């Protein structure tokens, strides 16, 4: 957990801080979208929470629709 938080803090320091200084709104939003998703999945995994596989879920949906080999 500590390593994950250190890693994400480094990413903020390297990439987000310069964006805030330059007031690049679109860049900040794009950064935060990716960052929040990545941080959430990482924390859940490190905490031992089983993150459902989107590929297996989509597979189940397709199978239930009769769309699989």
């Amino acid at each position, binding site marked *: 957990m500590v390593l994950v938080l250190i890693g994400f803090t480094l990413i903020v320091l390297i990439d987000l801080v310069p964006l805030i200084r330059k007031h690049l709104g*679109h*860049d900040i*939003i*794009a950064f935060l979208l990716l960052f929040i998703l990545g941080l959430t999945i990482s924390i859940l995994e490190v905490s031992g929470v089983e993150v459902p596989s989107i590929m297996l879920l989509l597979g189940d949906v397709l199978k239930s629709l009769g769309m699989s080999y």
Partner: protein
Amino acid sequence: MRIDKAQIPGVQFMFTVTCFIQSSSLLTAFLSEITKQDSWLAVLYRTLMVMFPDYNLIQILEEVYSPVVGKTIGISYAWFFITLTALNLSDMGSFSKLTLMKRTPDVVLIVTCMLVMAWAVKYGIRLITQYSALFVFVAFSILIASVLLVLNQINLQNFLPMFDLPAIKYVQGTHIISTIPFGELVTLLMITPNVKLTRRDTTKYLFGGFTLGWITVLVVISRDIAVLGNTLPIFTLPTLVTLRLVNLGEALSRVEILFAIMLIMLLFFKITFLYYVSVITVAQIMKTKSYRHLILTAGALITAYSFTLYPSPLHHAASAKEITPILWTFFEILMPLLTFVIAKLRKLPRGKEV
């Protein structure tokens, strides 16, 4: 607006296409059939590249479907590219752990690779594709050597009986090979503005790369069937098993290391390219000034995401056979085809010769 203004020459583009197909051809567990009909996909992508030489895929979607609808479809493509990157990264981690570094945790291998790839992505498309010709040359050399080394193991009767399977199996095989190695070339539409080529050269280099990749797929699958026969479907990495069978005395055994080198090299190239395309796609959708500030955070997301996709390589191989071809058809065949038809009907791009 273009995010990365670098230009790459046609030959570099051609070897990029070849490398891209070669890297998939080595994971042949889910490839059972090979047909030449897949070249129509290259025709479709080539047509879109020629129609919109200054636009990448997201810009094409916005032009054809309106900015809002185009952006919405673009978001689904961003998910598709990120998922492709994560899937290949997961493959590379599993493979490295299985063959080279058994005691090293997956996460260490994957994070280390991602950091090197992030470095390459930072320098743009020019650097990423710069070594594609070298990779193709090394891959072909190893491929030829591997065929020569297993000549004494080849049993031509393994090709028999022919055309003995139910028709649906041939449809499935064709569908898999269309979507997984060849259909993934849809990612090339994201670098169209970086490849300034005439209509003739686009055809020449795209088909040149496609043909070289196609030859690799054909040779790899034929060699594996000739050596492994009916046992082929039970292995997740048939090529690795084929090369493990090489035994020419004490000196020439354990040559599967050659396959490991080739696969890691080609997968590294493919993942770096997909990583770049994913970052460029997000940057294009969000209309950012530069893509460089998104590289590390996108890399962190892809790394975390790669651990959630499949619990094991067996699940991945099963899904690649049964589900993925159907899922990817939307992004690789239906959307490009629909976009082409609508662009033709709307006579797009306006003011330019098509």
